């Protein structure tokens, strides 16, 4: 009698999420111009992010990075005043379809930015592509058949591990124990690591030489897994975890027999609020990421100081930087598209774009996958002033295809 309640609960939560999304879609005003804007007439840009639902914690950064770019650029992209049309993808996937349809059909947006969850990409991109509207995506990037109108600002799921693999093969004297959560994102992340690590001559310490996948999201106690790491004689750990899983893993590691085995990970394990909740347990974790707030470049200093001014002196998370770049890419594409401003001319302008100057350094979109070809950095969690921060300690490879 109990097990039947859980799916019922889930269904109800999904239903509530769907209703909220519909309500949000119905409420946002639609006093906007048509798509063919002339001169400096105002334009409408859509931004879809998770304001409610299971990704609520991630959603605001996707909005805030974009909004910060507008704030610091006179609310203009490519010389046109922008009306930002914000929609809620809620729990992602089908819930975002009415939101995207309304943006395209009623609000006549020139482009859609944001999108947190990969199922939302799979639901929204075909609709946008059919209407010729470019999607400038700031969240995860799943496999999509037709990428003609999809432009990803973040990374390919295999990239963080792909950057770290060769480094660990060279710098760890012995085998590495690899961990990840048991879902598609975890498999992709770990495949990126194990492929590049073993190709560079590394050997996994796991049973059977394959990475260990922990039940997701139900693993709360990682202590038994870490006892196995210690017993395996591994000289380092590599893992990909996010959110509450990351916090539980890091806390267990810092208080286990395995605490003298260095922990390497994809950067998300120590981003933003996750790092704060981990506290001192995270000290010394080394990560690979395509961004570090202490990169010394004019573009990064401007971004970090603008973010700090608005948000209590905090360091910007990587997600906010992807979203800042989404606004920056649209800014340049709209300027280049000139007077004939339609979703298709903007899409063509993004396609023709060369090097992009960004807080993370210069990067460009791969002509093939439409994902950044970019440099990855090695970061270490250290005390920076009074708080723990991800401090850049070196460069890893430049990847992207």
């Amino acid at each position: 009698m109990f097990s039947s309640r859980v799916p019922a609960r889930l269904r109800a939560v999904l239903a509530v999420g769907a209703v909220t999304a519909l309500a949000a879609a119905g409420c946002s005003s639609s006093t906007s111009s048509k798509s063919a804007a002339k001169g400096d007439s105002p334009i409408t840009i859509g931004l879809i992010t998770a304001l409610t639902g299971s990704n609520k914690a991630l959603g605001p950064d996707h909005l805030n990075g974009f909004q910060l770019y507008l704030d610091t650029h006179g609310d203009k992209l490519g010389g046109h005043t922008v009306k930002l049309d914000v929609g809620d993808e809620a729990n992602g996937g089908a819930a975002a379809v009415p939101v995207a349809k309304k943006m395209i059909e009623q609000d006549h947006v020139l482009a859609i930015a944001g999108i947190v969850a990969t199922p939302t990409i799979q639901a929204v991109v075909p609709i946008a592509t059919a209407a010729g509207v470019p999607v400038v995506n700031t969240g995860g990037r799943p496999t999509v058949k037709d990428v003609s109108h999809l432009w990803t600002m973040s990374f390919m799921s295999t990239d963080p591990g792909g950057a770290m693999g060769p480094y660990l093969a060279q710098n760890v004297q012995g085998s590495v124990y690899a961990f990840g959560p048991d879902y598609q994102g975890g498999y992709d992340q770990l495949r990126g690591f194990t492929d590049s690590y073993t190709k560079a001559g590394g050997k996994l310490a796991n049973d059977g030489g394959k990475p260990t996948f922990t039940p997701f999201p139900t693993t709360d106690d990682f202590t038994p897994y870490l006892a196995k790491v210690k017993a395996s004689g591994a000289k380092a750990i590599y893992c990909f975890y996010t959110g509450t899983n990351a916090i539980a893993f890091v806390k267990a590691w810092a208080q286990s027999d395995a605490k003298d085995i260095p922990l390497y990970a994809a950067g998300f394990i120590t981003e933003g609020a996750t790092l704060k909740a981990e506290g001192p347990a995270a000290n010394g974790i080394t990560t690979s990421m395509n961004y570090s707030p202490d990169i010394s470049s004019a573009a990064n200093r401007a971004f970090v100081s603008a973010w700090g001014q608005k948000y209590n002196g905090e360091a910007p998370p990587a997600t906010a930087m992807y979203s800042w770049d989404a606004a920056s890419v649209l800014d340049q594409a709209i300027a280049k598209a000139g007077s004939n401003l339609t979703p298709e001319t903007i899409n063509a302008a993004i396609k023709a774009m060369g090097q992009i100057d960004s807080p993370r350094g210069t990067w460009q979109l791969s002509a093939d996958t439409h994902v950044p070809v970019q440099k990855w950095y090695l970061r270490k969690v250290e005390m920076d002033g009074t708080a723990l921060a991800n401090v850049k300690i070196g460069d890893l490879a430049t990847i992207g295809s």
Partner: protein
Amino acid sequence: MGTLDTYFVPALDGVAWGLLLFVAAAGLTLLFGIGGVLNIAHGTLFALGGYLAATVSDGSWSTAILGMVVATVGGTLGGAVLAAGTLPLAERGHLPQALLTFGLALVGGDILSTIYGGDPHPVVIPSSVSGTMHIFGHVYPTYRLMFIVVASVLALAGTYVLGRTRAGALLRAAADDRDMVGAMGYAPWRVHAALCGAAGALAGLAGGLGAPIIGPAPDAADKVLMLSMVVIVLGRPGSVAGAFFAAIAVGEIETVGVTISSNWAPYLLFGLMALALVGRTFRGSADSAGAAGVAGAHA
């Protein structure tokens, strides 16, 4: 050392994890097994306790203890809301109660995430218990060792109150024969309110004590509700001793079991739970007197 040595930490951790599940499930098993109230908002009360304790505690012992008190009081108040809501539904079975408490869980969860945000909340505990200790050459968190002691005391106290005191006897009597308890001069609504309050207090305290292990986050409520359900179903609703042994068993399955075969980790718990339920069904039909009636079984 040998293979056995590898399993020392997982086995010890299984006890700590099991006791956490026991403490987390205690409020639910009390209310469901004895009060007959199916409280879907139980996990939300746990999360409330966790958030309150984490907000009050700043790393000193005095605030840590104050945090436990605030969490318990918060849980009790939550229990009072529950009592007021479920009292009119007392004679209408579990479904209306489940629906109401499900609604309360949704509303409560939304209030919590509005106040505390969608991010996991940091938990600071006194530095003398935030470190590690060495036991037989292994490193283990001090807090979890302390938790084993505190939770054992709680388990003993609970068994004593329910089994050996007048108040406990009254609660068990109310479960068996509500009218008779009324005839003895105790208004049923008072017994109901006391049960809901006690269950809420337990859930809040569990949230406070468990916060350094299952941190307050938006998904904590669902997680705790699910695991508590497993524990009370395995331990038979209302049985404190049953819940205790079920919780320790679940703890060991999730630690030693995972160490023996991590490939089976996703299936171990629910697979064994299914086996236990099937086994019990056959045994139950064999001795027809053993009706595991939800309100009838207790310690």
